[in-house]
């Protein structure tokens, strides 16, 4: 038994590590889902909005995409309370991540919508579809197929960026692992273990993405 101190410590710390994993999955999932919804509206606004709307959204996406996620998360953690918005560290980190996700997905959605040939929406209009019907039944299904691969990338970026929440004290998987390390003084195996879990999560996301791509691919 004493020959395998790492496995013993891992077993002993399983609760803490599972909690960390749970937080990582929760914050990533929430950031991806909420950020994608935000990004969908941002992309629609960038494509169809008036001059002011587009300018405002352009400022948002350029600002966020030009800022390191690390800075973004710190900003949410330190600046939001100053503006009177009280958040927990988890909430502040989530806001940072979803703003990050929203700006990237917004750009992806805009690019996909603008890549659809103009004849498609004109054919929709010609059979009498309203703007929203045209969007839902003609444009978005085509845009989604193009969005999927890049969207999967964005999702894996969010999972990786969730490790940055450790610096504002959210005990997600990385911080949970570091806490175990500082107690057990077993460094490398635990880091490798955490790394393997992140890899597994992103591998699963990518496989899921590939599967979805195959499902919706057109002959």
């Amino acid at each position, binding site marked *: 038994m004493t020959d395998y101190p790492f496995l013993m410590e891992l077993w002993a710390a399983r609760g803490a590590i599972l909690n960390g994993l749970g937080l990582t999955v929760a914050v990533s999932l929430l950031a991806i889902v909420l950020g994608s919804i935000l990004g969908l509206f941002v992309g629609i606004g960038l494509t169809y909005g008036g001059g002011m709307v587009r300018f405002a959204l352009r400022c948002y996406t350029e600002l966020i995409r030009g800022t390191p996620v690390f800075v973004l998360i710190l900003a949410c953690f330190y600046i939001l309370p100053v503006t009177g918005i009280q958040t927990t560290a988890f909430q502040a980190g989530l806001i940072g991540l979803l703003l990050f996700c929203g700006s990237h997905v917004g750009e992806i959605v805009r690019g996909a919508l603008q890549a659809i040939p103009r004849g498609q929406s004109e054919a929709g209009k010609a*059979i*009498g579809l309203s703007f929203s019907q045209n969007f839902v039944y003609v444009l978005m299904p085509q845009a989604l197929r193009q969005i999927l691969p890049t969207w999967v990338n964005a999702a894996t970026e969010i999972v990786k960026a969730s490790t940055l929440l450790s610096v504002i004290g959210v005990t997600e998987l990385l911080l949970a692992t570091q806490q175990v390390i500082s107690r057990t003084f077993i460094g490398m195996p635990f880091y490798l273990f955490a790394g393997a879990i992140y890899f597994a999560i992103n591998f699963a996301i990518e496989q899921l993405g590939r599967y979805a791509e195959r499902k919706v691919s057109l002959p």
Partner: protein
Amino acid sequence: MTHPEASVATTAAAPALLRIQDLHKAFQTVEVLKGVDVTLARGDVVTIIGSSGSGKTTLLRCVNLLEEFQRGRIEIDGQAIGYREQGGRRVPCTGAEVARHRALTGMAFQQFNLFPHLTALRNVTLGLIKVRKLARDEAVAIAEKWLDRVGMLERRNHYPGQLSGGQQQRVAIARAVAMTPRLMLFDEVTSALDPELVNEVLSVVQGLAQDGMTMLLVTHEMRFAYEVSDRIIFMNQGRIEEEGPPADLFNQPKSLRLKEFLKTIKI
């Protein structure tokens, strides 16, 4: 000046199916339609010919409200479309009204523009279900009838990517006519096709013409235009230069421009 419904009543006595009056259309500062008048009675088949850039496509797109126009009036069955008079001013109709006006006409495009993510059948049923609000099985029955009509019933479950250009265009025509438009617009529906696929599409169009469908066509297939049309319109630089029965226009062109144009094409 008058409410759209009121104008229906006033012109109902002599109902032209399509009446275009003094149509002006400019892209920014470039005027591409410089006062065009066209009238089609029910059942008329009228073909627009003219060299590239003369404004044929733009005219059709205005009728289907895919383009705004700055002056003039387009009426379908006496109802002004796209714009209305309000307090003496000309105002664009709302999106919902425009969608309703568009449903009065059907359009077939040079590039087919089938929806690539839907099968041939679903391309046709989409409008029937979402715009005409038909039940699915009712829509399918109508769509199958039209797909059969254009010889595409067997391939109803194929996606556009699995069909030849001629087959795609036939499905696109079925998609448009299934909506029972009062007027069909065909814009060079065979120009993007390989030569051996042209006839299968033209015979579909000809069949619709024989059934009494009112249509306004643009084509470079002069023999076809000659055979199918009640009248030919020759457009030149945004204006109608000459108009009349095919025999007159093709055999005794009056204007110099038309003579020159006919020389450049083979019939």
